[in-house]
C-alpha cells in the first residue's frame, strides 16, 4: 500500500488553520501534515485522511490495527494505557513500551498540536 491520495505530502508553505496539526510518517517514510478536527480521535484523523490503517473495530480497542508510535514524552503525558490497550499492544511484534499507543484511544487536545505520529508496521 504505497498510494495515499488525500493526505498532502508535507509542505512547509501550507497555510495555518485553526485546528491543531500533526505530522504523520507513513510506512514508506513519507511525511504528511494533517489537521486534527474537533471530536476526532487520532485514529479517525489517520483513517479519514486515507492513511492505510485498517481500524477494523471502529475504535473500540479490539483489533490493534491502529497502532502508532509517538514521542516518548507525548506518551508519558497521555498517562497510563487502559488495560485493553496495554494487553493488545504488548503482544504486537513491534511493541515499544515508550512509544506505542492505539491511536483510537488518543483524544484530541491542544497539547498534542504539532506531534509526530509514525504508523507501526502492519501485523
Amino acid at each position: 500500500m504505497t498510494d495515499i491520495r488525500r493526505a498532502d505530502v508535507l509542505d512547509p508553505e501550507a497555510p495555518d488553520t485553526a485546528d491543531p496539526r500533526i505530522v504523520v510518517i507513513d510506512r514508506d517514510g513519507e511525511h504528511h501534515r494533517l489537521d486534527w478536527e474537533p471530536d476526532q480521535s487520532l485514529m479517525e484523523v489517520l483513517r479519514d485522511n486515507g492513511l492505510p490503517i485498517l481500524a477494523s473495530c471502529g475504535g473500540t480497542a479490539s483489533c490493534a490495527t491502529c497502532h502508532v508510535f509517538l514521542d516518548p514524552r507525548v506518551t508519558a503525558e497521555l498517562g497510563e494505557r487502559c488495560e485493553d490497550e496495554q494487553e493488545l499492544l504488548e503482544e504486537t511484534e513491534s511493541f515499544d513500551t515508550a512509544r506505542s499507543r492505539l491511536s483510537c484511544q488518543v483524544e484530541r487536545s491542544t497539547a498534542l498540536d504539532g506531534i509526530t505520529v509514525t504508523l507501526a508496521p502492519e501485523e
Partner: protein
Amino acid sequence: MSDKPVIIIGSGHAGVQAAARLAELRWDGGIVLVDQEETAPYERPPLSKEMLKSADPTALSLLRKDTFYRDNNIERISGRPVRTIDRAARQIELAGGVRHSYHRLIIATGSTPRRLDVPGADLPGVHTLSSHADALALQKALTAGSRVTIVGAGYIGLEVAAAAAARGCDVTIVEFRDRVLSRVTSEIVSRHFESLHRSNGARFVFGAGVRAFEGDGRVQRVVTSDGTSLDTDIVVVGVGVVPNQQLAADAGIACDDGILVNPHCQTSDPEVYAIGDVARCLRDGEPRGQRLESVQNAVAQAITATNHVVSQSCEVKTEVPWFWTVQHGTRLQTAGLRHESDDIVVRGSALAGKFSVLYLREGRLAAIDTVDALKDFVPAKKLIAAGAALDPARAADPSIKLAQSQTDIAQ
C-alpha cells in the same frame, strides 16, 4: 474522467471500505456508492452497544467523516434502493427509474434480520435491530421498568439484553437451544455469559421457540412453543440474518444462501463482485463455502475485490476471521472458526472471570475465544494463521505466553 465507473451497491462496512480502497489505489474511472438509507454511512456495532445504553439519541458513529467522499471523488447516491441489475447493458436501475452504467459492479448489500414466521410478528412493539433507524426506535422504547422479551440469545440479542438491563428494564430471554451464543461458542463460554446476564437480573427460557405474539393493537404477550404466555411491553427478535441477495438472483447471478463468489469475490458474472455479509465465498476443499457476518470479513473482502478490479491482482486479503461482542462490560473476542468436534483447552479461570478457550484441531490451534483476556488475542490470531501445533498442557497455563506453547513437529 469517469469513463470506467465502478458502482458499489450498499454503503455499509464493506461498500465504504471498497470505495475508500479504490480511491487509495487512485482509480480514476469513477467511483459511485449507492445506498437506500438516507444517513451518511455509519458503523453498525455501536447500534447494539453504546447507542442503546443511553436514553439520549446519540450521534451516529460515521464510517468516514462526511467530507471524505467529496474529497476523494466518490459520488454518493443515498436514499435510493437499486431495483434491478441489467447485466447485458451493464447498468443498474434505481427506484424511480434512473439508470447508471458500470464498468464493474460491487454488490455489498449486507443482510436483513430473519423474521419469525408466526402470528403477530408484525405487531407494533416487535423490534429487530440492523439499521440506525431500528436502533433509534429501540432506544426510545427501552424505558425503565418496561418488560422486554428478547427472542434469540445470539450476540445481538444478548447485547440488547445487556443494554435493556442497564436501562432498568425487566429482561427475559427466550432461546430455542439450551444455551446462549450456541452458534458461535462453546459451552463454557456460554455458561459464563449466561451467569453474567442472570446476575444482572435477566431471566432465561431455554429450549423454547415462539408460537405467537399477541396483543390488542400492540404486542402484549409472547406465547412460547410449550404454550407458556409471557407478558411483555416490547419484543426484540434477534434470530440471525438472511443475505440481501435478491437483486443478484433476479439478474441471474448464482446464489445459495448468499451470492456465490470465488476467492477474488467475483460472482458467476466476472464483472460483478459481491462482498461482506451477502457473499458466500467458495474455496477449494469447502463444499458449501463460507458466509461470514463480521466487520473484519466485510473489510477484508472489500480490499480483495478492489485489488482485483484495479489490477487483476490475485492477492487475496487473508486474515483470520474474528469478531467481538461486549455485554455488561465483559468482552468476548473470537478468532478463527470453531468446529463442534475440536478439542478444548481452557486457559486461565472462568471463575476469576478472565480466561481463554482454545480450540485445537488435530493438535493445531483452529480458533480461540478470549473473555476479558485480550492478551491472548493477537498471538492467537497469528498462531491460527500459521496453523501452529500447541502443547495443550503449556497452552492451559496462563503464566506461559501462548506463543511459547507451540510444539515443534517435524513434518
